[in-house]
Structures are given as C-alpha cells and as structure tokens.
C-alpha cells in the first residue's frame, strides 16, 4: 500500500521522500527514559546543560509510552521488572526504536546472577547498544548519532 | 615415653620422635624445606629452628630427638627473627620469576614469606646467574636459579631410586644443583622429584605452562596403570574449562598411603591419563552400518542390542555367546556384568584374562608387570574361566573362527595385545554380533558391530582391588565425556531391557550388593574402605610390605 506500490518499486520520489521523513524523524525523537539504576545519573548529566541532548532534538522526555518513539532502557533490568519493560515496549506505536543504554542492558554487565536479565535483547529487539558502566556522556551522544544515522537510512512506511 | 611441652601444650610421644614430628601430632606446623618423612634427615635448610629451653642456641626441630621434660617454643620473637633471617638468605639470589614460574600458588617460599616473613628486602646487588630452563630428563625441567639447595631431590635419587643422578656442585653463592656430567634424570620415578621440590626449581615438562594451580580442584583416586594401585590425586581444571583445548585432567599427583605407595608413584602412571581426553574417546553409542559408524541414542542402542541378543540366545543358545570382560573395569562394573551375563542371560563363557604377548616393565618397587588395576578383583568375583565352566578367551576366538560362536561382548580390551592381528580379524569377522564397550577406540573396536561408550576412571565412582587384595576407592572428578556412562550403569540398563531389573542407583549400591554375595568382600563398605583402602577377607597384610624396595 502507499506510494511504493503505486510506483511499483523505488524511484526518485520515494527515495527523496524517505530521506525527508528520515531527516524529520531523526531530529525529533521523543525518548521514554526507562531509568532504573546508576546509568540514570549519566542520563541526567547528558540531558542537562553541559552535554545538552536538546541540540539533537531528543530533549523532551515523554513519560507515556503512547507518546514516545524511542525507548531508552537505562540501567540494569532485573527479572522482576522485565515484564513491565516489555509491556511499555508493547504499548509504544510504530515506528519505535530501542536504545540499550549501559552494559547491564546490553549483556547483563557483571551481574551474572539469579535476578538480572542478561541483556534486554533477550526480550525485545534493540537498535543501538551503548556499552559502558556507565557510558560517558560523549559515548551516549555517539550512540544517539548512530541511531540518527540508522533512522535517516531506513525505509519509511507511507 | 617422654613427655614434652610444645607452646604450652603437653604431649607424650614415642622415644626417638623428633620435635617436628611431635609438633605435627598436636597440629603445629613448623616450617621446613629439607625435612621429608620419606627421606633421610639432613638439617641443611635451617628454617625449622625452634627454641628449646636451657639450650643456648636455637635447635633444628627436624633432627632433635625428644627428651623428657623438654619445653619447646615454636613461635616466640627469637624464632620468628631466625625464620626471617633464613628466608632473607634464601631469597638473596632468588630470581623474580613468580609470573612465569609453574610453582606459583603452591610455592613454599611464597607461603612461608606470607606466614613467617613479611620483612623489607635489603638486597641491592645484582643476582647471581645460573642455568635456567634446562631439561635434565624426559620429564623434568631444571631452573637452578630458583633452587634453594634443600637437597631433597639428591637424597631421593640416592636413597629411593638409588640411581644417583643429581648432585650439588660449586661452593658459596655459586652452588648449583645439576645432574652429573653425562647423566640424565631418566629413572622411572623421576616425576617424584617434582613433587618433593618445594620451589619451582624442578618442574614438570608435561605440565609446563598448562594452567595455574589455583584453578585446579583435587579429587582422590587410584592410578589404573598397573596392579599396584598407587593412591593419587587427580587435579582437574573446573574453573577455566575453555582454556585447555578440551583437556580436563591437568595432572596426577601421588597421595600418601602408608601401605601401598607411601609418597611416590611411577612415571608411567603419572603421565598415563592422556587417553581420558584423547580424540579416540568413544562419546556416543555407535553402530557400524555399511562400513561407516552411525551414532545412536542410548535408547535406540539398548533396544537394538537387546533384541539382537535375545534373537541369538533363542536361536543358538547360551553356548554361542562369549563375554570377554576386562580387569580394567571396576569391581562394580565387573559385578554388574556378572549379574547381567550369568543371571539375566545365563551365559557361561565369561573370561577376563588376555595375557599380553609383550610383558610390561616391572621392578620390585612400585611397577608391576600386570598393567591392569583390578585383576585380583576380577578373580575374586569369580569371572575367571578357570572358575567357571566356560571357555577361555583363546578358546572363544578359536570357536569364533570355526563359526561356533555367534555373539561376542568385549569390554575395554585391545585383543591385538594378546593375539595376532590376523587371527583377531578373522575371528571377529565371522561372529554375527560383536559388541565393544570401552573408553577409547582401538583396533578391536573397529571390528565391532556396536560400540558403547564407557566412562573412564576419572569419570566414575568405584573400587579397584590391587595385587595384594587391597580394595581402594576411586572418585568421580569430572563429568563423563559426551554420552559415556559407567560400566555398571550400562549393564543395569541392558538387564532392565531384557527383563531383569537391578536396583542400583549409585556405585555404592552395587558395592553393597557385591559385599553381600562374594565371600572375599563380605562385610566391606565404602565407609570401611575410607581413604587408604582395606584388605579383602582372607588376605593378610603380607610380612613383606606390599610396596617393594629397590634394595638390591
């Protein structure tokens, strides 16, 4: 459905439209900061004046999953909160992006124990992994820029 | 019996006991380097100095015999100072090798420095250089710089093996341990010098840089190399399994047993564990289909074999069935086999002895010609053809050649060791059903129809009976490789499939059943066997010790 099927494939119009939509989407990300642990401190630092996330368009956290499009999973995910994280992810509308912030969300960190989820990619698909314990704000910004690149180069639906 | 006081504890000991032995009896560990209970006492290291009241200078605890009324202090200020001084002298020229030395983690210099030393070094000179990483024999690597000249290895070669290969040369700072010119440390017990060396001077070539010792776990067991059954500790790496390329057992070390092997073991047994993790291990039940091995699940293998056995028994009777058990199996495996073959299948042709054509090396110390750990056990359980009315192994093979034997169950043997290659091949090819149960592939298993994987000696609990009738326990150190199972488990499963179930859930159950049935084992149990084993009924401790001596 949509323009692509009308044109029977990709051509100049669809690629330019993809780029335009990509540009618009990447510069207006609405993060849902699912903050649990120490990485939350770096998230606060990255959102504040010194390492401003606002210049990337991702300043405004939306605390409702229905209004957000980027789920930033910040901090260790324990087994107890995993169903709730999944529920938040399910409640978001497409297109949605998941950022695994901090090594506990990427691979469990050094918490190889009975109560930690060993990487959130066991329960949901992840777009960008930002390792670090906690990652420096510059690393977070690099991760965000990688996500923006990914969004720009994606095929969007219309 | 003289009474002495050590560190305010009174103790009464036999006449002739030395102070260091008396202290051991009450749990006080006096540090020592040159003293070893199995070797002569020389008193060269001087670290066991203790203060004995009314003696003006400190005395060596290893050589001073106990006298009635003696008062000994092993830990006061004077003794501590003396120990620190001795350590300081020993460490003056000691190389900075800890990161590359195999002994790190079990090094007595490190341990005693942390317990008794803890002083600041004053050494600001260059260290004396000596030979490093010098192989002095097929198994031993020497590093003279690390040697503290305790002369344990020299005394071992002089007194125990009487081969006199090592000696101390030069004087003063340049004193060095070396083999005599033109000689190598190549006696059959050279590995023991590595055990007794307290530092990293003599190290094992085989174990060199394999793993750090703090990753190793120790499990007591018995060496399966020959019928002496030296007590050993199996050192296996549980913490870093991915590092050694699949080799789980790192080394074997002797364990003290006053009646069997004391503190020693031979080199053949020490390095004879390579088959445990070799590529030739059979890891799953296999069936030969059209010249190739096809892997089966245990369920399928047992079903097929049981059906075939039933068929052959029905068609040809129990006389066409031959069983060659092995004295490599544990008592439990042999007993379960006996139950299975004699009671469930009612087969009479059972034997275990395959006399090797080439005699193994034997001497009068620890090595015996019979390279099987459990011949005596097999005999006592009643599996020798001499005791049964069945065929012997040679007769079984002859029958097989004449087409009279239809099924052959072989355990662990490599028949080429006892018979000519062509004979074995001819015999086995004429048998309808050949089942091989063992740990490693060999020429006999290649001729079989079915191969069942058996667990090796480090992978199961069980007991061996040595040549003098001593039952000793082996313990499970690592998990069985792949799908392999202990022998008694395989026989129990087969028996269940063929109609008669045996209520054995662990090796202890089988041993208890064995103890009830066989006279020689009556009244024995794992608790009675303990750490050092126990003699079977009917065997007396022989007047000559079980362990011989290399006294000419």
């Amino acid at each position: 459905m949509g323009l692509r099927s009308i044109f029977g494939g990709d051509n100049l119009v669809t690629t330019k439209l993809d780029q335009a939509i990509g540009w618009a989407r990447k510069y207006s990300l609405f993060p849902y900061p699912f903050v649990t642990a120490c990485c939350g401190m770096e998230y606060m630092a990255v959102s504040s004046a010194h390492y401003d996330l606002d210049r990337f368009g991702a300043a405004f956290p939306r605390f409702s999953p229905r209004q957000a499009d980027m789920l930033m999973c910040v901090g260790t995910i324990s087994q107890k909160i995993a169903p709730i994280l999944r529920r938040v992810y399910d409640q978001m509308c497409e297109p949605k992006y998941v950022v695994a912030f901090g090594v506990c969300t990427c691979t469990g960190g050094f918490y190889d124990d009975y109560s930690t989820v060993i990487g959130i990619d066991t329960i949901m698909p992840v777009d960008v992994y930002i390792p670090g314990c906690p990652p420096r704000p510059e690393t977070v910004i690099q991760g965000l820029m990688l996500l923006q690149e990914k969004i720009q180069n994606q095929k969007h639906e219309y | 019996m003289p009474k002495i006081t050590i560190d305010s504890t009174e103790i009464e000991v036999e006449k002739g006991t030395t102070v260091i032995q008396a202290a051991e009896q009450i749990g006080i560990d006096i540090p020592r380097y040159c003293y070893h209970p199995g070797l002569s006492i020389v008193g060269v290291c001087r670290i066991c100095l203790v203060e004995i009241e009314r003696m003006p200078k400190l005395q060596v605890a290893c050589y001073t015999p106990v006298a009635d009324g003696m008062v000994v202090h092993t830990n006061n200020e004077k003794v501590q100072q003396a120990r620190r001084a001795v350590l300081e002298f020993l460490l003056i020229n000691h190389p900075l090798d800890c990161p590359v030395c195999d002994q790190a983690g079990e090094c007595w210099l490190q341990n005693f420095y942390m317990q008794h030393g803890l002083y600041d070094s004053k050494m600001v000179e260059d260290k004396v250089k000596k030979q490093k990483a010098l192989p002095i024999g097929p198994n031993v690597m020497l590093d003279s710089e690390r040697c503290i000249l305790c002369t344990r290895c020299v005394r071992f070669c002089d007194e125990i093996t009487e081969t006199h290969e090592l000696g101390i040369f030069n004087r003063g700072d340049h004193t060095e341990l070396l083999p005599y010119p033109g000689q190598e440390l190549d006696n059959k017990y050279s590995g023991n010098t590595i055990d007794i060396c307290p530092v990293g001077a003599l190290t094992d070539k085989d174990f060199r840089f394999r793993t750090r010792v703090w990753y190793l776990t120790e499990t007591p067991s018995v060496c399966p190399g020959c019928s002496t059954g030296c007590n050993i500790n199996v050192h296996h790496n549980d913490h870093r399994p991915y590092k050694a390329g699949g080799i789980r057992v790192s080394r074997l070390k002797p364990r003290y047993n006053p009646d069997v092997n004391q503190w020693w073991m031979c080199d053949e047994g020490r390095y004879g564990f390579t088959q445990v993790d070799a590529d030739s291990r059979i890891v799953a039940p296999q069936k030969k289909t059209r010249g190739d091995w096809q892997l089966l699940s245990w369920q399928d293998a047992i079903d097929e074999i049981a059906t075939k056995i039933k068929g052959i028994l029905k068609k040809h009777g129990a006389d066409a069935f031959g069983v060659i058990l092995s004295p490599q199996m544990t008592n439990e495996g042999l007993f379960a086999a006996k139950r299975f073959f004699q009671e469930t299948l009612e087969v009479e042709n059972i034997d275990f002895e395959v006399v090797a054509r080439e005699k193994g090396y034997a001497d009068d110390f620890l090595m015996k010609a019979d390279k099987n750990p459990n011949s005596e056990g097999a005999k006592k359980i009643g599996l020798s053809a001499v005791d049964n009315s069945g065929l012997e192994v040679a007769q079984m093979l002859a029958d097989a050649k004449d087409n009279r034997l239809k099924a052959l169950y072989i355990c662990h043997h490599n028949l080429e060791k006892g018979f000519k290659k062509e004979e074995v091949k001819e015999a086995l090819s004429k048998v309808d059903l050949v089942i091989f149960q063992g740990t490693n592939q060999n020429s006999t298993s290649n001729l079989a129809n079915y191969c069942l994987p058996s667990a090796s000696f480090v992978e199961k609990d069980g007991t061996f009976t040595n040549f003098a009738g001593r039952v000793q326990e082996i313990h499970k150190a690592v998990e069985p490789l792949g799908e392999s199972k202990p022998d008694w488990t395989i026989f129990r499963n087969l028996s269940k499939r063929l109609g008669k179930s045996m209520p054995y859930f662990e090796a202890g159950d089988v041993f208890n059943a064995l103890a009830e049935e066989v006279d020689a084992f009556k009244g024995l149990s794992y608790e009675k066997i303990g750490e050092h084993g126990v003699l079977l009924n009917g065997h007396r401790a022989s007047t000559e010790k079980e362990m011989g001596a290399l006294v000419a």
Partner: protein
Amino acid sequence: MPRNIFKTLQQKFSDFILEAYTYRDDAIVVVDRNAIYDICKFLRDDSRMKFDLLMDLAGVDYLGRDPRFEVVYTLYSLKNNNRLRIKVPIDERNPQIQTVSTLWKIADWYEREVWDMYGIRFKGHPDLRRILMYDEFKGHPLRKDYPITKRQPLITAEYTNNSTITPTVELSNKAMDEYVSEEDGLKVKHMFLNMGPSHPAMHGVIKIILELDGERVVSADVGIGYLHRSFEKHSESIYYNGVFPYTDRLNYVSPLINNVGYALTVEKLLDIEVTERCKYIRIIMSEISRIADHLTCIGAMAMELGAMTAFIYFMQAREAMYQLIEEVTGARITISYVRVGGVKADLPERYEKRVGEQLKKVRAEIKQVHKLLTRNRIFVDRVQGVGVVSKEDAISFSFTGPLLRASGVDYDVRKQFPYSNYDKIDFEIPIGKNGDVYDRYLIRMEEMEQSCLIIEQAFEKMPKGAIMVDFEGQEIPAEKMADLGKFGQTKNLLHQVAVTDPTLLGSNKPYHDMVYAPDKRVSLPSKEKTYGSIEGLMNHFMLIMDGYGIRPPRGEAYFAVEGANGELGFYIVSDGTDKAHRVRCRPPCFAFVAGFGKMIEGAQVADIVPAFGSINMIAGELDR
C-alpha cells in the same frame, strides 16, 4: 559500658543468654530464640538501656554448622550512644522466630527481607511475603546452597513473542469489600491507583499502590525489589578488594561514601589503621560525593514540582563535582577508588586549588537556588507541612540522616561515632523542627555548605608532601624497572623511583606510604618493591592471586558511616578465607521507604511527589 549491659541482661534473663562477649569493641550477646521478644522489649523500654532504634535485622547462613541460621539484631540507643548486637541461632529444621514488628515498625520490612532471602519465618508477622524477589520465585537466594547463577526468568523470548502479559498487581491482604467509606450517607468505594515501577520522576523503579478516596490517600503499599542485583550474594563470591565495584553501585549518586564504609568495616575486622593523609583524603572525597548527592536530590525534587531551572543549575554544579572526582579517580560515577588499607592513589598535584574553584561554583549555584526556591510562595506552599513524620514514628522506623534530623533528633554518625578523623574537623549539624519536606530541603541545603567547610578544613589539616625514602635521585620508567628485575640486574634497583602513569601515583614509592596502611598482609607493595625485589614480588603476587589475598581472622564487625541519606552500615562476617562469608549492607533509605506509606496517609495525591522527592530513594541502595 558493654559490661553493664551484659550484667543487666544476665541478671534478668539468665537462662536465655547463651554467650556475651565483645569483639573489636562491639558488644555481642547470643540469645535463645524463645526469649527474643521479651529481651527486645526490655531493651527498648528500660529507662537505663533505652535501645530505641533497631538499626538492622539480618540473617546469616552458616551452612554445615548446627544450628544453621542466625538472625542478627543491631540495636542503637540515642540516649547512651552505644550499640548492641544480638545474635539468635536458628535451627534449620524449624526456622521460626517471634516477630518484633510490634516493638519497632521497621522490623516489618526487615523481617520480610529475611524471610525472602533465607526462609526464616516470623511468628506473628502481619504480612509475611516476599519483598525483594517476585512472588513466583522459588527458593531463598541468599542461602549458601542456592547457586548464584540459577535463574528463574519471569519472561522469556517465546513468551514475549506470543502474547498479552497479565499484570502483576500485588495488593495487600485486605478484602476488596473493606475498601469502602461513607460520606453523606453514600457508600463510596476506594480506588486503587498504581504509581507503577516505571516512574516519571527520575527516581528509579518503585511501585506504590495507592488506595484513594477521591484525591486523598487512604493507605499506600510500597513494592520494592525492582532493582535487586544481589550485591550480598556477589560479595560472598569474590575476594575482599573485588567487592568495591559492587559497593559503587549501591548508592550510585555518592559512591565514594559506600566505598569508604566498606573499607572501614574490613579494616575494623583486620584491626588496622590507615595513614593520616589517607583519612583526610577519604573525608574530602566523601564530602564531594555528599554534595553531589544532595544536589541531585534537591534538583530532582524541584524539577518534579515544576522548577526545572533549579534542576539545570544544580546539574551544572554537579558537573563541577564530577570533574573533581574524575581527576582523582579516573571515572565520573562508578569509581572503585578506595582499597582495603588505603586508597588507590594519592590526590593529583595542585588539587586543592581546583577544589577551591569548583566549590566557589557550587556555592554560587546554591545561592541562586536559595533565591529561587526558599522563600518562593509556590514552593513553600507545596512542601511545608507535607510528609510530616513525628519524632516517635521516625525513631520507630529507624530513620537516620536528614530525615531523622528534620524530625528534631540530633544524630549524625560523624559526630556520634567519629571515624577517619572527622573528630578533628569543626562542623555543625543542622536540625529541623517539623519533620516535613521543607525542613528536609533546608537541612540538605545547609549540609552542602557544611560539606564545603569540611573539605576546606581537611585540606588545611592534611599532612602534605611525599615521604622520600632511600631516594637516590634516579628515575626509571616502570617497564624498564620490571625488565631489569626480571633479568636479575637488581643492583640498586630498590633505591630508584619508578615513573608510572600519573593516575597510579599512589603506588609509586614516594607517595605509596602516605596512602597505604603499613601492613604487608593487606596493602600492595609499591612498584619499586614489586619490580625490584623478590620479596615485594611475592607479596604482590600472593595478595592478588586467587585463593590467597587478604585474610581477616575469623570474626565479624559492624561499622557505620554517615551516607548522604543516613547511617550506611556494613556487617561483615569473615571465616578466615580470602572471601567474605557474609556482607550485609544496612541501607539508609530502606527505612524511609518503609515509612513512606505512613508518611503519605491522609495526604493528597499531589503531595506524594514532593514527599517522595525528599526521601532521596536510591534504588541501588534500597534493593541492593
């Protein structure tokens, strides 16, 4: 003092006191379990004993010993300023003991945790259910026979691909029909609102189930455990120095205070003293962390009330603190700076000047925010009179730190049990009157100022300069020194100085003895000794390698430091090996969250936000 306590107890309860002794200056009594309620009641009510604060209630598993478990009560008396530890051995076959939740309200939650982690039942407990683990979890994780990696996932990949997830709302045990009140002759049913784990206010994960009558809170049940990362189980599986990264992540806003607390407890067990300079360094770093913590707390609370400016200003000030911390330790938040017996490295050069500059910045920001908030009509209306906790309730819930001081009790661990040279420094403790959120805000603001003063005084009093020992003036790069040592060319090597990376300064000979305790069984030797002599190499080797390490003698110790939230206590049991047998962290905000339900009873929904902000709940510390 302990002798009097022992004498009184033995006179009154002679049959039930099994042992009474002191270890490392702690008074310890071992008591039979049948008398625990009476003994606790006596200790709390008696006018001479007056043990009114139940600091900690923990379980310990001594697998292989009969009786297997032990429940450890740590009591504190405000009037007499002393502590008492009561240990009760509990048999494995019948793991039960009488509850003390009727004596101290905080025992309710402590006992739930002991039940969750060890499986010891408390008779008479009003509501014994799991607190840190989820209900579907089987087993008791802190028991020694529960393997640390045995996972019981609540949600797996195949589950997530399939379906709808059923919500797990934990309600307390009252029947639904009871939630009814009458108003003007109408029966009104209460509403249950879930202020769920994913919280907009950046506090981390906690679930508050509110029972609402319109806008007013009738009761609240708080569910925690959403960040349980098994700190205590991990500490039992790694050597003593390896626990520091785990302690960083307890109260992750002020990690240096956790590090210092754990290090001091192990040093108490070992009975060693660190050097004077090291004590002052620890004070300076703790106070910098404390400032960072208070900045975060007030900033976040203000932001939730709508004052975003205060948040941004304080985040700028916190950046200044992070830069200071990064210069010393190399990392911003999770730093692992302290070691048993010292700190990792000495302070960098000319650090005092930079600290002075940054503190000026912080003071300027504090002044700004004072102007913005302290007399601001809107702010004061929202926080004054909200979340009031009376003095008796605060003591019964064993509040400590700013919340206890807001309710009018003068208790600060730095003054009552001075550690690490705090007694040589002159500072004040602000005390509040009303116990509401406004008081706590003012106390925190004032504490930041006091911390700045402490830092300045510590710099003045600190012994300066390096200890030059045997220094012949030649400097060699450390790698070259190691090579020379390896080849046996140790001539005069001990007299040189190894030039290492500036961040490793503390391990270099001139500075090493200033920051490491002089005990060789605990402190790593300096680089010169390690590379230049076999004794130093062996010492270094044995302390680092697996299986040897630091070996405190068998025993136990409890030590508390003043965290940003209150009394942060560590209780460590050592069995003589290089790994601890039990490490228990007494988290200060556990008490606050336990009392939170009571705090907001009768308040409006809008009051929950500032009340919760004033608690400064840090999930890492609460759930460990």
